């Protein structure tokens, strides 16, 4: 069995950790690192019987994830102070999961701080952040114009003292994308956390997770996003038996029904998410997504080069109309 399949089986709880050989652990640890899932795995196997070196490594990872989570929430607090009363914002992705205390946050690696600000507040938010010590990462005029004209977020900003990035979104998919979720609904229906931050409501959070994984980008790091979706679904169904029905309606409103349905089927196939009837179908196209999600060799390297390229091209195809894509690729190629 390949290391990436062993990793998925361990996360899903289909395989006993005690059955792995030392060489299998080598691969599982490398692949989990490559997929940013080592912290998640170490939490998932917190009570399992493990070889002593693996147990020690996993204890390191759990401790490190806890520190990283504190730091991520501190960064959110810094953004709250900088934006003060000038712009409301909603936390997205990893920091939101941590602030809301969701199960996928345990051990999860959190990269940049992602926030959603209503479009009419974006200029004010930008000014406040620049005054608060953030600065542009890419001072390139083409990239800057590209972000502003076509993307769903400002060009990335980095804090000059703390060296942490913030992505300020005004919606959850690029402006030129074939799918256009309703950003006003996302902000209007956001819910507060106990710590006083705002996060997307459960159905929107699941929609965003699916859209981010399947409609934005080339599925790089997809196993982690799919694990998020699996955990979100589990948490939300436990709190609200009507969750799937509400998710369906909400996904339709955002035009993301295909993505959400596919995310649910993939989560079932890989992690064993329990789906209600009506969701539990099969789509022949899913196999390409499964193959792409599992495209890692036992050394943690990317495999299946052609399939990766195909998904890379697909991500651009979804992102912008063909004429614009041609212009963009031409501009990028000329500057190489």
């Amino acid at each position, binding site marked *: 069995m390949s290391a990436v399949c062993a990793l998925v089986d361990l996360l899903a709880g289909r395989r006993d950790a005690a059955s792995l050989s030392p060489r299998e652990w080598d691969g599982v640890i490398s692949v989990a*690192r490559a997929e940013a899932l080592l912290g998640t795995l170490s939490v998932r196997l917190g009570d399992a019987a493990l070889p002593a070196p693996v147990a020690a490594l996993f204890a390191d990872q759990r401790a*490190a994830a806890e520190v990283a989570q504190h730091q991520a929430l501190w960064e959110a607090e810094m953004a709250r102070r900088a934006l003060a009363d000038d712009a409301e914002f909603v936390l997205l992705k990893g920091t939101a999961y941590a602030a809301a205390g969701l199960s996928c946050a345990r051990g999860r690696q959190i990269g940049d701080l992602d926030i959603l600000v209503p479009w009419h507040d974006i200029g004010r938010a930008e000014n406040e952040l620049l005054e608060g010590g953030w600065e542009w990462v890419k001072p390139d005029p083409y990239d800057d114009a590209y972000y502003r004209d076509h993307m769903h977020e400002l060009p990335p900003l980095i804090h000059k003292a703390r060296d942490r990035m913030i992505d300020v979104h005004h919606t959850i998919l690029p402006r030129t994308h074939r799918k256009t979720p309703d950003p006003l609904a996302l902000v209007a229906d956001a819910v507060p956390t106990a710590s006083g931050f705002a996060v997307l409501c459960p159905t929107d959070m699941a929609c965003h997770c699916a859209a981010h994984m399947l409609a934005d980008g080339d599925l790089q790091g997809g196993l982690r996003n799919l694990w998020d979706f699996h955990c979100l679904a589990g948490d939300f169904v436990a709190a609200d038996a009507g969750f799937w029905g509400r998710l369906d309606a909400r996904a339709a409103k955002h035009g993301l029904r295909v993505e959400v349905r596919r995310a649910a089927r993939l989560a079932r196939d890989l992690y064993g998410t329990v789906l209600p009837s009506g969701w539990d179908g099969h789509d022949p196209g899913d196999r390409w997504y499964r193959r792409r999600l599992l495209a890692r060799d036992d050394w943690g390297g990317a495999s299946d080069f052609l399939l990766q390229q195909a998904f890379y091209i697909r991500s651009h195809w979804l992102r912008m109309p063909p004429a614009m894509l041609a212009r963009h690729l031409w501009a990028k190629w000329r500057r190489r």
Partner: protein
Amino acid sequence: MRHSTRIAVGPVQFRIGSDWAQPVAALNRLYVGYPRDPERPADATVRLFAARPWRRWLRPSVQIGGDFTVPDALPLPLSMGLLAAEMGMNLQVALGWRRHLLLHASAVAKDGRAVLLSGVSGSGKSTLAALLGESGWRLMGDEFTLIAPDSGDALAFPRAVSLKNEAIAEMAARVDPARFGPLLAGTPKGDIRHLVPRPDAIAAMHDPARPALILFPRFGGTAAVELMGEGEAFVRLTEASTNYVALGEAGFTALTRLVRETPVFGISYPDSATGLALVEQLFAEAIR
């Protein structure tokens, strides 16, 4: 990967894979005296691979990767495959290790007490540590020293010492040639030759040592010793650490304890003999 080997250095078990046989063979020759435990899963994986398929044969060049990769890192020619492997191992530790506070410092120990030598590259810390390792001290490492957050002890990471330029001839005059790796001429850092620590230093690689002294050496100028305040030492060591920020409070606690309990000096020395004498003298005063 086609070729692979496993090496344990201090607390880290590495797995190194390569598209070519040469770097793995060179590693196996250099690390022949290190303990091997095939039952132990690897903490860190290094991959040495061809950036493009044809680069395996045509002007072969080694891209350094693994669990952690530096984007845009330039590949090295295959003749420097051993250097690539060493850089790959250092990279995984620098970016991935979380059990200890990592200090970019050489260290030597005597009677269970350690001297840490930190400073920018070119300060002579590697050469000084290598020389001490041949004159009655246990060489703990020339690249990283690990500080255990719970005990405050220093732990060894005794990779092969990478000697550069003039230091190669200086050490060759004193050490058995069998302990040297091949000469790697004209690398981005000049000439490099690896020196394997003495067998007793390798055998003792898991023994912790209590920090007795921290030195910031500077090669050149007249002999001088300057006591460094806790604040300055703290700031300089945060700069010398690759995981201080990632460790959060545990890193802060370990580092404040280290600079409070350990005397810190900046030293200048015009030649190796003076440098060695200064270390011996300051160590004798520190443990008295």
